[in-house]
């Protein structure tokens, strides 16, 4: 199914009137957040890209029982590459459940650490409301403590987007998205998945605001 489903159905005439350079003044709609900011994480721009601290995506949703958070990072990458567990990076999922919406009422901190044996890595998740201490254990293992569940590991990159279509649009001036073409298909990355009982986050009718940050000890690479 490589035929183009561009948006010919919508418009034969969907041709940009001007060139790509003007379309994207300083922009790079590369992905959800993969390789952003480029000067710190994109190998085509930065000679010492910080892959480990490069957030790829952030997800947050809920059901009747839990609120779920996923932060993906260090990707996308080829499927023959290992996961990235960098003990010098602090991953934070900031959660606000009260006014002001811009203050993290409970930041959830995620750290990685080396194990005692070779090829052993652990994950530590602290700050989950309702837990008496950090959740710690091996990566690639589902860890449950006091109602919360976490897992860090290598996964498929869940993002889907026609990056090539965007690049083509920019360079040719013709909109040429192809919905059968997914740049992120067949690629992996590392992720942390967290499930928290909903009643520990719900605060009346207050909206829940979520944002992710990464930081490196000793300064940027």
């Amino acid at each position: 199914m490589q035929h183009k489903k561009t948006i010919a159905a919508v418009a034969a005439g969907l041709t940009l009137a001007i060139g790509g350079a003007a379309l994207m003044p300083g922009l790079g709609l590369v992905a959800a957040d993969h390789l952003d900011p480029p000067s710190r994480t994109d190998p085509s721009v930065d000679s010492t890209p910080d892959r480990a601290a490069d957030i790829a995506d952030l997800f947050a949703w809920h059901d009747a029982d839990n609120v779920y958070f996923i932060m993906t990072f260090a990707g996308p990458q080829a499927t023959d590459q290992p996961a990235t567990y960098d003990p010098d990076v602090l991953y934070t999922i900031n959660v606000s459940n009260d006014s002001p919406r811009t203050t993290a009422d409970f930041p959830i901190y995620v750290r990685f650490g080396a194990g005692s044996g070779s090829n052993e890595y652990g994950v530590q998740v602290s700050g989950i409301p309702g837990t008496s201490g950090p959740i710690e254990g091996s990566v690639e293992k589902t860890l449950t403590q006091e109602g919360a569940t976490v897992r860090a590991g290598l996964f498929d990159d869940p993002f889907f987007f026609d990056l090539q279509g965007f690049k083509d649009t920019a360079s040719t001036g013709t909109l040429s998205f192809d919905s059968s073409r997914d740049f992120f298909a067949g690629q992996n990355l590392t992720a942390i998945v967290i499930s928290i009982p909903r009643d520990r986050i719900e605060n009346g009718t207050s909206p829940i605001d979520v944002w992710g940050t990464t930081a490196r000890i000793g300064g940027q690479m």
Partner: protein
Amino acid sequence: METNKRSIRRTLLMTGSLALIAGTLSGCFDDDDQQPDPTPTMAPSPTPTQTTYDVTPCLQQEVAPGVSVAGLIVPDTLTLDLSGTSGFPNGRKLSDPVIDVTLAVIFLDLGTHSATTLAGLPLNPPSNDVAFQSSFPFLAPPQGSPPVTTATGTTFTFRSSSPDQYTRVDRMGMPAVSTALIGSDTKVAYNDADPADDASGTFVPELTEQLTGLTNALADDLVAAGLQPCATATTAS
């Protein structure tokens, strides 16, 4: 639910985001030229000028009752209304077609078109290449045959450094806001900032300028495609 949405709106008004956006727009819709003069000057030009657009209606239109586009991207956070159904832009699930929805709400008149208009085509791939899992951890297993980390370890060494000893590298809230609506010159500052900076209006001029630039390039094409842009034309060649 309505109370919740009113709360969101109230908070936004309190932070002044919308007021700042409106104030900034008045000086911004004329592209980069900083020409607030309401009377267009018809100076001779070697090339025809392009129609320019005012994106104020795009930022002010509501994605849901009480939730404006401006409110979605400023501050740059994922927002969950737990009383409502989960799914972008009420939070973000793995399967949500966030790029097509984002493009729709920032470019199309939502009074005419649904936020899922572009996702319905679809413009971009409508789903992931492999199926997500229906239960924890939800993500699909890694593809291929990557080296596998041993999962039997029990003793690990973690840094105990306090968060303030680390240096910020990256920040993310809404998908593609930092990548699509923040220009290269501002990306580092944006990633170093926090939602409180967003709410105070720090990046509103940048967001507005980038959206205006994209709209100026794409609006004619959207019209040609039978779509109604949310932006309004301010000058024409």
